[in-house]
């Protein structure tokens, strides 16, 4: 198996600009059970020198969207799962600020794991602010394999 990657997917797709709200941050922090007041209380965040509440580090995953983009169509019945990811943080995501997210397929390779051959899709997403500063870079690996083998 070798997955077909659309040339457009290597170019990348853009999400946003999107303005982060305090409500988005609060619901994300609650879902992780992380009620750090910097994430939920504007007064605490201001006292710490931020203009509004900041997001937990992993909020970047909500910003890159619920789906892995660009989408790579899988053959019928194929399963896929997240293998892991690497994130670089350059600055905080702050409520009320506007960001743009660009995601592209950076690499595709085959490897043999515990339970047989699999293919790995590597995507890279970059979150930038309105001054085009890079705030967060995410590299993530998606495992793809045929239906007769469980991941």
């Amino acid at each position: 198996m070798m997955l077909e990657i659309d040339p457009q997917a290597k170019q990348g797709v853009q999400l946003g600009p999107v303005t982060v709200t305090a409500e988005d941050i609060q619901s994300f922090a609650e879902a992780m059970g992380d009620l750090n007041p910097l994430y939920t209380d504007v007064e605490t965040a201001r006292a710490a020198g931020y203009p509004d509440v900041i997001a937990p580090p992993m909020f970047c995953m909500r910003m890159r969207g619920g789906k892995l983009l660009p989408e790579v169509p899988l053959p019928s019945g194929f399963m896929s799962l997240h293998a892991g990811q690497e994130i670089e943080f350059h600055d905080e995501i702050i409520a009320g600020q506007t960001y743009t997210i660009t995601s592209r397929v950076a690499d595709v390779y085959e490897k043999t794991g515990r339970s047989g051959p699999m293919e790995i899709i590597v995507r890279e997403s970059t979150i930038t602010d309105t001054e085009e500063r890079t705030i967060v870079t995410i590299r993530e690996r998606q495992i793809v394999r045929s239906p007769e083998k469980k991941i």
Partner: protein
Amino acid sequence: MALSASTLKVGDTYEEQVVEDLKRTQLVQYAGASGDYNPVHTDEVFVTKVAGYPSVFAHGMLSMGMTGKMLTNYVGDGRLTQYGVRFTRQVWPGDSLTAKATVKAVRQEEGGHIVDLDVSTVNQDGVEVVSGYASARVDP
């Protein structure tokens, strides 16, 4: 409270329980908050009858996020510069997870101080579910 390079030693550890008896409700809540509606995390009928797993299981990113809570509690807010993980085993409803950071190196970079950490999260049976690394800015 930020960490200080002068008092950190290679081999120092910090750990905390990041979830006890993970509820299916939290998986649904995370799906909603993240926009990740992959049915393997929320749809018990699909996941058992079609996908052939014993039950729904947690989003890798939820495990990574809960582990991240331990990291920010340890290194302080706005300090994390890098965080990478592999998801080594699935996390199931009912699991309790303990996340641990171990100091791997304390170094200087561009005039600032950085701590490099090994990160490991295990379930109630001691089986590792998240394995990774992180780096953070620390005070001198």
